[in-house]
């Protein structure tokens, strides 16, 4: 989708808001919103690509203006409701209740299996690498062009690299394909490559800063061969 989350190259947003000695958590609610990523993943509500797509479906204005972890709240709500785990009316009722009673504590609960899952998830992660019989169609040194289409649904093909020509600088093997898994499809493993684009190729010779380049990862279906010397 052509969403507002796809921010690379957007102008006019102003200075980077740097906070000195920033704490890990800015509010208590952030801890719970953060924890919902791992626990909802375990409950089968989403994979990481679907998680991202849920965030991308926020209203663009809300996306830009809300604090970061509210994005996570949004996607957990989105899939929780879709999967029938969350009754939206019940969620609204309880929200009203906690607005009126903000200091009412939740019951302290414990589950040793969930705790073990959390520790194991942090230690071992959830690798996205998947085996595949498919051989790579590209190799380091190849010139490639990113397809200039606008697919519906989730994709990692950012707008600022579409149609641009770059050079493959790394080949990483096969990984879950977000354009499938993020849209509810299967893993459909595809080769991932890092492609180097010069600033001039991305932004044009007049706007580009000199002596720079951007390295962007693509899945094989995003790219096609480009003749040597080709540009956007």
């Amino acid at each position, binding site marked *: 989708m052509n969403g507002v*989350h*796809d*921010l690379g190259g*957007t*102008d006019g*947003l102003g200075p980077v*808001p*740097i*906070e000195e000695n*920033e704490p*890990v958590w800015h*509010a208590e*609610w952030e*801890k*719970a919103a*953060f*924890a*919902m990523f791992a*626990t909802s993943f375990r409950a089968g509500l989403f994979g990481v690509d679907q998680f991202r797509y849920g965030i991308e479906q926020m209203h663009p*204005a*809300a996306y*830009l*203006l*809300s604090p*970061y972890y*509210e994005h996570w*709240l949004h996607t957990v709500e989105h899939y*929780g409701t879709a999967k029938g785990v969350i009754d939206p009316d019940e969620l609204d009722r*309880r*929200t*009203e209740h*906690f607005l009126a009673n903000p200091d009412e504590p*939740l019951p*302290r*609960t*414990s*589950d040793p299996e*969930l*705790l073990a899952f959390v520790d194991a998830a*942090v*230690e*071992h*992660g*959830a*690798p*996205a*690498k998947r085996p595949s019989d498919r051989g790579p169609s590209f190799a380091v040194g190849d010139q490639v062009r990113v397809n200039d289409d606008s697919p519906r649904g989730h994709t*990692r093909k950012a707008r*600022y690299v579409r149609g641009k020509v770059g050079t493959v600088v790394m080949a*990483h093997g096969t*990984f879950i394909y977000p354009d499938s898994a993020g849209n509810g499809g299967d893993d459909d493993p595809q080769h991932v490559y890092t492609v180097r684009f010069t600033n001039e190729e*991305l932004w044009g010779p007049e706007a580009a*800063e000199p*002596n*720079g*380049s*951007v*390295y962007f*990862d693509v*899945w094989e279906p995003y790219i096609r061969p480009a003749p040597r010397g080709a540009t956007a």
Partner: protein
Amino acid sequence: MTTHVRSQEEIAARVKALESIMIEKGIMTTEAVDRLAEIYENEVGPQLGAAVVAKAWTDPEFKARLVADATEACAELGIGGLQGEDMVVVENTDDVHNVIACTLCSCYPWPVLGLPPNWYKQPEYRSRIVREPRTVLRDDFGLAIDDSVEIRVWDSSSEMRYWVLPQRPAGTDGLDEEALAGLVTRDSMIGTGRPRRP
């Protein structure tokens, strides 16, 4: 166009409401929330990346392994896991300065840097760092990069997690690994800063 930007109070109430339902459904526990918060507050953070960098500065063979396969090299030190399943370290040199970003969301190498600072996830950095990195580094981070040095921006669009091996500061010849680790800042491993001077 209808949208409502929630206040902190409204968000807090909604998260609590959602959490209370999730607890009843057995999907989460307050204990799991506390544990995850504790891990990223006290256990997993940039001190781990700093230890890796300090080792790379003092052990050329380790550095070669780190640059060849960061995931494997970090695993030697017991470092790895969630959001760093496949890591790549990019090395700063006299000719190249690297900086990491995620223009599409907030991808960041958690096992070595912890959770990202807010600015890394916010629209200003994500929009500008690929378009005018030299300007952002100079004006926003006070990091002037000489025009003769190439700036490489690593946009973490896949599950590969990039981070920066900064250059060892001059005048640190007599320092041991632990003292060196104390000089390595989070921002120096993002590429928006340099290590401290002793």
